[in-house]
């Protein structure tokens, strides 16, 4: 292509508001599906009503959420559509009311379940991204935009909170649910580690599989201090026989040799023994029954949570976890035998970008939990004082609003991250564009991290090779390449899994198939 043609293509490419496209797509997806997903995860709010004798339990069922377009409520009670410019000038928040269907249900154990009250109520206000599908200026023509005092060439893609424009900084995280094998040193010896950041519904758990200097495998995961023997854990998950464990790890003769060493050292032989041994680790010094209960709870809740599947058999999920652990073991051994190199953390295949929609989803999740706790408290209070339980009188809409606005206004996100939202750089037009297309690595800027700061070959076509700040942030703050396209995760994982199953992938839990083999990440 000659220069002229390239210029033509470039022009066409950027003529359709593609500059902040990644923000819009992400935030729109959050409004359309993300919010509903979060509510469906929560599904109900349980209360302590009914713990006493002769009282029927009460819980709240959460239903559909609906977001209107931004509007402002004046002190005199009138409500009007709000446009971004008015929000900027009056120092107010460009946010839209959120409504949710809730029904209070009483009964369940002895009596029949009765819906006491059901209503769609305003639960709070959601800050709306300028230019997104719920924005009041989304469909306006250039003339109309000028009419209401809006800049027609403004790219949008930011929020307005208390009159200041805040952009949510895209963050570059390590890909979750992937096995990363690497070398590490412990007590001066080189050991091999396979890592997985297992992530599901905002819960993130780091699972480590180490091959220590004796060649024994150890696994560590949250809620267990220290590490657990690999064979014990796999047996607790239901993979009992020596043969099967070895077979699941690898058929390679040298790895088999390593595996047999491990099996020789095994402390337990059956699943029951294994769960007992695990129970001693997670609830040492407690009663036997509690130890078993706790052990089962821990492996179902905290071990590799991303392998959980709605509606799948517990057994199947556990088996899948065992297979996944075997894959991690294999990665360790292959690294030890130098069959493979350690995984490159800076490779862009091992990176995921968290754009505004993902960040808002995290925020909305904690905000909804806070709201749920408040509703629970209000319900218990109302019940204690013998009041009628109605949806309208137990929802405090400022709880959610505050939880959503405050992080955007200050940049202090949930999970202790700070500087997530930044004041839009209005130095000049290019400054705005650059700011909206900036991304930040969560690595500390005070440490060297030379590899992370280097330009990686896989950044080709994705990240601009030259635009990065000087000084401590060099190489940690990056900017998108011109024609970068950001792909999004699949909308419907179930259908993807079904498709994979129909193409011959076996052993996906929740999908009927003949034989069970581990599903890769």
């Amino acid at each position: 292509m000659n220069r002229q043609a390239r210029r033509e293509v470039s022009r066409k490419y950027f003529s359709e508001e593609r500059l902040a496209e990644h923000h819009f797509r992400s935030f729109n997806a959050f409004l359309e599906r993300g919010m509903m997903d979060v509510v469906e995860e929560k599904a109900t709010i349980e209360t302590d009503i009914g713990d006493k004798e002769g009282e029927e339990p009460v819980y709240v069922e959460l239903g559909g959420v609906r977001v209107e377009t931004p509007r402002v409520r004046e002190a005199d009670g009138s409500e009007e559509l709000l446009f971004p410019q008015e929000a900027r000038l009056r120092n107010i928040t460009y946010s839209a009311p959120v409504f949710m269907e809730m029904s209070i249900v009483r009964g369940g154990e002895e009596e029949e379940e009765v819906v006491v009250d059901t209503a769609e109520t305003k639960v709070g206000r959601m800050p709306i991204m300028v230019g997104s599908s719920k924005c009041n200026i989304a469909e306006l023509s250039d003339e109309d935009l000028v009419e209401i005092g809006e800049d027609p060439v403004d790219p949008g893609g930011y929020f307005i909170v208390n009159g200041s424009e805040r952009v949510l900084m895209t963050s570059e995280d390590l890909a979750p649910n992937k096995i990363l094998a690497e070398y590490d040193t412990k007590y001066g010896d080189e050991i091999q580690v396979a890592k997985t950041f297992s992530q599901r519904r905002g819960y993130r758990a780091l699972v480590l599989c180490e091959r220590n200097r004796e060649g024994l495998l150890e696994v560590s995961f949250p809620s267990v201090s220290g590490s657990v023997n690999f064979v014990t854990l796999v047996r607790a998950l239901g993979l009992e026989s020596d043969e099967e464990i070895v077979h699941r790890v690898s058929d390679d003769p040298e790895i088999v040799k390593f595996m047999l060493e491990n099996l020789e050292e095994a402390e337990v032989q059956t699943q029951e023994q294994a769960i007992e041994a695990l129970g001693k680790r997670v609830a040492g010094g407690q009663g036997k029954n509690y130890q078993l209960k706790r052990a089962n709870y821990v492996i179902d809740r905290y071990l590799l949570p991303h392998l959980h599947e709605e509606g799948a058999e517990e057994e199947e999920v556990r088996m899948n976890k065992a297979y996944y652990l075997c894959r991690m073991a294999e990665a360790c051994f292959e690294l030890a035998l130098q069959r493979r190199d350690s995984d490159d953390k800076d490779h862009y295949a091992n990176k995921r970008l968290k754009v505004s929609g993902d960040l808002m989803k995290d925020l909305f999740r904690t905000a909804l939990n806070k709201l749920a706790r408040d509703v629970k408290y209000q319900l218990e209070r109302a019940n204690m004082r013998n009041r009628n339980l109605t949806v309208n009188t137990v929802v405090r809409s400022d709880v959610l609003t505050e939880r959503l606005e405050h992080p955007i206004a200050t940049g202090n996100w949930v999970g202790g991250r700070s500087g997530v939202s930044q004041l839009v750089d209005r130095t000049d037009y290019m400054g705005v564009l650059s700011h909206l297309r900036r991304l930040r690595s969560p690595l500390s800027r005070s440490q060297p991290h030379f590899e992370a700061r280097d330009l990686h070959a896989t950044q080709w076509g994705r990240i601009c090779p030259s635009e990065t700040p000087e000084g401590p942030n060099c190489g940690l703050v990056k900017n998108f390449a011109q024609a970068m396209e950001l792909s999004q995760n699949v909308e419907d994982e179930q259908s993807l899994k079904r498709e994979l199953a129909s193409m011959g992938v076996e052993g996906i839990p929740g999908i009927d198939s003949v034989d069970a083999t581990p599903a890769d990440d």
Partner: protein
Amino acid sequence: MSEARSPQGCPECDGHLGFEAGETVCTDCGLVVSEYRIDHGPEWRSFADDDRNPARTGAPLTRSRHDRGLSTEIGRSTRIKGRKRRQFARMRRQHNRARISTKRERNQVYAFTEIRRVTSALSLPNHIRDQACSLFESAQNEDLLRGRSLEGFAAACVYAACRVAGVSRSVEEVCDVSKATESEHQAAYGALNRDLGLPVAPADPTEYLPRFATKLGLDSDTERRAREYVADARDEGLVGGKNPCGVAAACLYTAARDRGEDCTQAEAADVADVTPVTLRKTYVALRE
């Protein structure tokens, strides 16, 4: 402190006193008159974020919390483990128990949460919320709560604060989102009005106009016209003794009719929570 503030001379030699870095020193003989004094000089602090941010330490005092927002909370940390963590959990529990010491305070906490909830449900501004809270406190000081319900008082305080501020909400609107029944509200409001001497005049129908107009989807010209009708009605003596909501709805309805906007009597009456008959009375009177 009083010594340092009064412009006296040195107690020893009547010399000139100088103020420096929190110390009051006689510039003649060098006697340190006072060591601890509040330094009124510029504070040593940089406004890192942006210079419009006046925040110094924490949130400002607010009347809408029983402790004026000056609470201490024992936080959680993932870094401390084991024994220390359990100790903090115990301290947190004891602290939470000790936070509310009297029945009176407990009532206040409950009523203030209820007031917050009602004001947020009605989308009222913060100053109304604060005023409602301080009204509640005065009611408590006057011992009005005895034998009346907390919820009723919470609702009544919000209602009264709105009335006083000239942004009236109808009793029905407040009671709808409140946990109180209408009779509880009435009892509490009666007591408030009687014993605290609230400066409330009968609600002006114009206070309701903007709200009803947006609910009915009428534009601002119609609203302005309705405002004129209200003024006319007041001059003709049609407002006294009538439900101001009904008068407002009737004026809006009349104005909408004049301008040919789509609005039925039933709709207008529904928005104002009155019967169409009430509306019609004023409407007919206005037409005459």
